[in-house]
């Protein structure tokens, strides 16, 4: 009894407080008045780039003429980074096997219209974030929970994320994670599966947490249905890594538990499938 058994809530905390050490370097084409030093920052994995890069902008603005400062965007090894993906997802998807810190180029011009959405203000992020939460709740509870919340409750979720307030966020978010015990889980699991090599931005399907025979579905069951290639073949060769928050959960992990504990603040499980390192 009472032994030091790690609690499930520690997982929530670990997920929330995940940080990626990042080195921001101004792209060589940008025009500066003097040399721009790289800028080092710990980025919260669960947040969004524009939400946490004020300091980056200020840092580089100091060495640039105001006229040369357009909308800031980021690029990693030639890939423009979508601001509406959580940072942890971007890192897992594109850079999970690189050495740290994560090296990102900062751009202020040549905004890649075809790849990125504009982000004129934080309210755009808020709108995106809230719509994700609503979509997730529509899947989980037919939207019943999120619709019952008041405006200030929605604000609390957003402010919790914006200000990195774990308690504030989870005080409200726990309501989104509840479900009737007799059903054993949500209606459907809100998840998205991303892969670098695909043209589709992501895969999303209706998937229940519990099989019709009452057995809980696992991560493996989900992949079997949605992305069978990600499951190691009989020869034991692992072709893909299945990554959430920088870790590879076992395929036996119940999907409901994953959804409750490893979802991003937008209430989606963002799963990256990346080719396994060849070595």
């Amino acid at each position, binding site marked *: 009894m009472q032994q030091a058994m790690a609690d499930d809530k520690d997982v929530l905390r670990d997920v929330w407080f995940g940080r990626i050490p990042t080195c921001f370097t101004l792209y060589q084409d940008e025009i500066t008045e003097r040399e721009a030093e790289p800028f*080092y920052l710990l980025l919260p994995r669960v947040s969004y780039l524009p939400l946490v890069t004020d300091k980056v902008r200020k840092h580089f603005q100091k060495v640039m003429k105001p006229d040369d400062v357009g909308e800031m965007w980021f690029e990693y090894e030639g890939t423009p980074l979508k601001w509406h993906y959580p940072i942890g997802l971007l890192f897992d998807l594109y850079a999970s096997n690189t050495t740290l810190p994560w090296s990102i180029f900062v751009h202020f011009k040549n905004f890649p219209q075809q790849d990125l959405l504009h982000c004129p203000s934080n309210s755009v992020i808020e709108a995106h974030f809230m719509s994700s939460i609503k979509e997730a709740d529509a899947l989980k509870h037919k939207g019943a929970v999120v619709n019952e919340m008041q405006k200030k409750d929605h604000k609390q979720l957003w402010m919790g994320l914006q200000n990195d307030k774990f308690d504030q966020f989870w005080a409200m978010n726990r309501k989104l994670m509840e479900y009737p015990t007799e059903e054993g889980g949500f209606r459907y699991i809100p998840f998205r599966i991303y892969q670098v090599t695909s043209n589709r931005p992501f895969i999303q399907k209706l998937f229940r947490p519990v099989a019709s025979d009452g057995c809980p579905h696992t991560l493996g069951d989900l992949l079997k249905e949605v992305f069978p290639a990600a499951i190691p073949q009989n020869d034991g060769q692992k072709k893909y890594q299945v990554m959430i928050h920088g870790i590879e959960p*076992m395929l036996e992990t119940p999907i409901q538990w994953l959804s409750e504990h490893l979802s991003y603040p937008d209430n989606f499980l963002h799963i990256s499938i990346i080719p396994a390192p060849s070595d």
Partner: protein
Amino acid sequence: MPSSLLWAVDVFGRVYSLSTAAQQWDQCKEAQLEFKRVTAVQQCCWAIACDHQIYLNVHASDVPIRYKEETYENQRWNPVDGFSDRLLPSDRWQWSDMTGLKHQPLDSFQLPSENWEWEADWYVDENFGGEPTEKGGWTYAIDFPAAYTKDKKWNSCVRRRRWIRYRRYKACNTWAKVPSEQAGLPDPFNDISCGGWEISDEPRGQMSLWAVSLQGKVWFREDIHHLNPEGSSWVEVQVPGEVVQISCGAGDLVWAVLWEGQLLVREGIGRDCPKGSSWVVVESPSPEVGAIHVAVGVNVVWAVTKDHKVWFRRGINSHNPCGSGWIGMVGEMVMINVGLSDQVWGIGAEDRAIYMRQGVTANELSGKAWKALPSLRDSDRAHSSASASSLPSAGCFFSGEVRVQSRGSVIGDIDAGQEASCEAAPLLHGQADAPKPLIPKVTSDSFISELVSDRDRREGAVSTPIPEEDQGSEQDDKAPPALVLSHSPSCGPDPQWSNVDLEEAQTHLAVGAASDAAETSSLSSVATYNLGLEEPYGPDEHPLWAWVSGGGCAVDSHSQLSWFNSSAGMCSSMQSMSLSVSPAQTAAWRKQIFEQLSERSKREMDNFRHYEQAIEQTVWVKKGTMQWWRDWKPHKWVDVRFALEQYCGTDGSKEGILFIYYTFNEEKKYLHAFINEVTILVPVLSDSKHTFAIYTPERTKQRWPIRLAASTEHEMFDWLALLTMSCCDSRGVQGPPSKQAIWSVTCKGDIFVSEPSPSLEASPYPMSCDQMFWHQIGGHLRTIECNSLGVVWGIGCDHTAWVYSGGYGGGFFQGLASSTDNIYTQTDVKSVYIYENQRWNPVTGYTNRGLPTDRYMWSDASGLQECTKANTKPPSPHWTWVSDWTIDYNVSGGTDREGWQYAADFPASYHGSKTLKDFVRRRRWARKCKITTTGPWQEVPPIPLCDVTILPCMAQSKVEQVLLWAISNKGDVLCRLGVTPETPAGTSWLHVGTDQPFKSISIGGAHQVWAIARDGSAFYRGSVSQQNPAGDCWYHIPSPPRQKLKQVSVGRTSVYAVDDNGNLWYRHGLTPSYPQGTTWEHISNNVRKVSVGPLDQVWIIADKVQGSHSLSCGTVCHRLGVQPMEPKGQSWDYGIGGGWDHITVRGNSLEAPRISMAMLSDRPVPASSTPHSPLPLRNPEGMNGNVVQS
């Protein structure tokens, strides 16, 4: 919820039980005979066997059933012999009962049946009303009958003493034949039904057993109660017709079915008259088709008509046992049974499977749908996987289109008459055209007796034959209805006895299926079976059930039953992994996630801690509106804005401030409190407002908290959860309580925990106890006890025992403030009382018209509040009523037969019988309400407790077995075996015999066990040790003069007790050689409860503590100045209150750091750096070895 049993009999007369925790039926191997019917309650199961005798199976319990026989020995003094057994001719018998009217020498006592045994020989009782007598146990008086005293006086002419002998019921867990002492008893029994245990709340545990004989007479078994499980005799209850079946609910409902198809309802059943007084006839639900079966619960009646249709009776309640109308239900059943919480079981007419009614709740007694129970039996184990996967019925709802196919064992709904005709010719097609055969007198179960007797006959076994003559004569006696007329006794082998062999059975089956639609009026549901086979069912076949009884099966619509986990066996590995339940903790996937996350943090963060954070921490404010109970007069609720501001302190700790913004004289003002000064947040009991109180040390001194009311309950709990978390954060309190924790319970049943600091028991300058920080733990309890090894037990208001599971949170703490595992559902039941008051006037006698100055005619106990049946609500919205208002007869002072207590005037002392001087009377009404909440508590079934105590130890001590003693709610003393820090619930109870019921118990650090009996006397248990956990004998300790003790607590060496008048007593003169001590010394008054800890520290709950602003009752107090040489201490320090009911400090073995006088001027030194206590060594061995030192 502990597991309980559903009982059933299959068509072969084999008895099975299905545990609520199991997935398959267990055959009752003890049954030597085939059984016809069973009727179960929680503690036993009655059955009629094929010999038509009644058998009783009492479930074994850790507490034996013991019956105390007593008799008095009377003597008279004469100058020649002194006291002798030579009495005057006018005197009573030399051996008599207490009144002296009945002659009862020792050898006149016989065991009532062979199911009993004597526990020991007769012995003399040396306890006289709580006072020990001289050896010999004599009590003296001037003459018979008179007041006896224990002292012999000059005028004592007679004396008497009481002899005691216990007998013990020994036939537990086996089918014991109930003695049928009356020779003329009746014709063989045909039906029984047990119930009635809710008719009276009294601890005697009275129960009703109704039986129907083959002749249709009704019998009632007298005098069944806890101590007399067999009852004593049968009494015939006159009935207006011939009864075929009877059903008795847990309460006062009794319905019977008449042979003609009408129903009978018993009226006038009550506490004084469990048999009831009269019958009322209720017509069958359907005018053409008579009823054949009825089943009643507490508030429901279900019936089955002869066409197998199921009916639900509308409008049943305690005032109207007849109800108001029938509602036809879906499903076709041969019988129905109503169990605990009015849950319903039935046996399908078609497939003979057992169905459970789904969705039966107090608000929807008729439920929603039928669901088949799995039919897996233990004998099927060999092929369980095969049958499990081929279970078509499991999980299917019983509705029109669902038919369970089971090869070869389909039960045709053909009656015996059809069978008989089939035997003669293979009438496969002519069946529908064949003239409807006459229907023999077969009730839905009598075919079992047929089958059984049939088999008997075939096997040549000598067995009680079914008395056919009886049936014949019965038909001669009465003018039977037309239906029966055809059933001529002279027609040779009765069709219903006909033998059916396998081949023909198959034919019948086909017929049965074909004639299914045509079959309308079949009275019985006689089936055909291949009786000769060794194994009657193949692996894929279902058992064919004949009877089911759920009277002992505690399930409700919320129970998680393993019965319906159809996937049993197939995915058992996943089954155990139900989310957020502890076995999953150990799952590999979870371990991997924890490991990977910590690896990830190391990889991504460890080398980069010097990097700047992207988001800087700021202040976070939560605001709301509430009402505030204004601090100054006139006190009233005023609207305020409420805000909690939280920020990170410079050292990274979290801090917060509470603001209450109010307007006074149109001026905006505010009140604030620092979160780190808040000592406790308490939800306050109120039926109208959602209120809670906030205390700081200052407010505790004033006895005047900040009182706030939220607009909704939800909002209040949101705030309470948030504020509690904020307080805990600022104090660095997180996770489960430590083993040293001090636990307390409020009168509302809320549980609070405080982490003691070493300075709490420091001397001479302890931490003031109003500084203690308390936080709430989920659950609802009345009493809680613990020790410093982390063993914590609680007892609910309904006497359920609970053990602490190691979790934290629950209740309104959700999400982060609660552990995800070790939190369980907890329920508790308590009674709400109101009083009916009446005044006598010379014209009309007692009426509800009082004097203008009188109290309300319906009031609370004080008479100050009006409380009517209609306007009295449960204590808070969490509670729901679970019973109706009933008269409470268990009131101190006694009552008359209608529950009245009399007095000269209001308010006064009340007594149970009317005298000439009485002008007013009152009676107490009780209504039960129930709370369902969650908390870190697991039930310890099955014995309800009223007190518990756990061996206090030093934190470091290693104890193989933690001694734990308890008292059951019936007053039995119990010793728990197998309790260790790893298995705090232990394994089983060991009963410790006493001569009378007990009420309080406590064990000290040296295994000294003290207890208080119900009569207020104290007892010391000798020779308790690790090796001999139950000790050997009781020593009677005289109580303080003219006081009846109520509670006792034993610390390391100190013994304290509280009496009924609120006095606290200290036991003097305890020495290792004389651990009983010598005298009681008065310490204090206004004490409600005492808890003495392993350091001999003394804490109490005190009544009436005066603060600077107000007075509080139920206050936690700490005895100051307690030292090894001065165990009585000097004065009280006052802590949190009022409204506290219980505290236990028996986990706190944190010794105070030693403070030298020189250091006192300086700051106290942290505990770790201080030298060890200079007191005599208290190492565990030393402590457990030394008995007592004073």
